[in-house]
């Protein structure tokens, strides 16, 4: 499992583009928003939590099809399926690799983008915690969507259609947590919901994703 994780990470870093692309997309999104709604901090501040979470969501979505597509093309996915490692474990590791290469850089960069959108300094910790707790669920659900659409020719658009509705609960609780951090409210309740969703997703979705992969490899 560790070998698979290291292989996936190495591929993501070396195979050009994949690694920093999510953060670059996030940066572009956050710098385009002020052009759309105006540079006024009074207009930006209330929507900053939503924009930050939407940016994380879309940046995560961009790289989802890479989770299985390349391995499916060159046949290494079949090898993984026949290896002694359970396919559920392989799915979880691949989702983890996706999270390390896209989720983690986003979290590191998020405070900077928060400043760009006039998010008050008091809300930065809740931004970090909400992303840290919420983004693993995004990667895992994305791995499920990628597993369902892996063999399809026009999978990309379908992937976003299937995955984005699944992101709604995470998005709701994530933005609510930042908003409460911004207004000095009690951020524990949305945090607990967010953590509950992530824990449930991490526990159950690998099985669904592995089942979908088995169907597609048949």
């Amino acid at each position, binding site marked *: 499992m560790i070998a698979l994780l290291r292989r996936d990470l190495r591929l993501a870093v070396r195979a050009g583009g994949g690694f920093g692309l999510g953060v670059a997309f996030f940066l572009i999104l956050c710098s385009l928003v002020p052009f759309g709604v105006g540079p006024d901090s009074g207009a930006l501040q209330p929507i900053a939590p939503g924009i930050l979470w939407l940016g994380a969501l879309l940046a995560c979505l961009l790289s989802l099809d890479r989770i299985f597509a390349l391995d499916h093309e060159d046949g290494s996915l079949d090898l993984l399926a026949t290896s002694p490692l359970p396919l559920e474990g392989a799915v979880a590791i691949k989702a983890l690799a996706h999270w390390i290469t896209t989720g983690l850089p986003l979290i590191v960069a998020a405070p900077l983008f928060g400043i760009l959108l006039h998010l008050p300094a008091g809300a930065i910790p809740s931004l970090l915690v909400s992303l840290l707790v919420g983004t693993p669920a995004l990667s895992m659900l994305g791995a*499920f969507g990628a597993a*369902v*659409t892996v*063999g*399809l020719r*026009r*999978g990309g658009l*379908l992937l976003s*259609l*299937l995955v*984005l*509705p*699944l992101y*709604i*609960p995470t998005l*709701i*609780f994530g933005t*609510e947590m930042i908003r409460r951090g911004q207004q000095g409210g009690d951020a524990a309740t*949305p945090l607990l*919901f967010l953590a509950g*969703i992530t824990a449930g997703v991490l526990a*159950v*979705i690998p099985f*669904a994703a592995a*089942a*979908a992969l088995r*169907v*597609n490899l*048949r």
Partner: protein
Amino acid sequence: MSIWEYANPVKFMRTSGAILPWIGAGAAVCTVTGLAWGFLTPDDYRQGSTVKIVFLHVPAAMMAINIWVMMLAASLIWLIRRHHVSALAAKAAAPIGAVMTLIGLITGAVWGQPMWGTWWEWDPRLTSFLILLLFYIGYIALWSAVEDPDSAADLTAVLCLVGSVFALLSRYAVLFWNQGLHQGASLSVQSGERMSAVYRYPLYLTMLGFGLLFLALMLVRTRTEIRRRRLAALQARELRA
């Protein structure tokens, strides 16, 4: 005699063909009578004539949810017992459910404009219906995207299971996110009816009518799917010969 006999397509075709005209006639009678009766009810003292939208809105909304539950049950039967009729019934039901959801949303908007002063409000009930529509669309799109019918049935069944959990989760997550404008249940088993009998009886009739309508449409579409499957099998046999 058990329900599993109808997993046999021949048996299913024979029985469904025999009962389909009766269900269709029942659906037509109940829906038309219920809607006509509903249309002739007196105006509500506050809502005026807009109250009559309820005879379309409530049955459609009810069926939108029930059809998803039926698809969930059919998907589970397919995953566990591998009965093709079940998978095809789930496939046949999805577009009907999507249309029911759309009817619920549109009639709600038409009613909401004069009553709430807005076509759309991000109310938990409205929002969760929009999310349900997204799930229906994703499900239908996945069916049409996968070429191999058995893989498509498997993948959509898994999607239906995951989607059910998340549709339910979203339903309660949106409660957290925004407070409601939509009124609570007017008919419920626990608290009894909070609706005048003048409106209640035509509503029951249209609800029954929409249920039968769904059943009839679902049977027609499932029969079409079975015939399409047979046609494909015949063509494949011809190619091989």
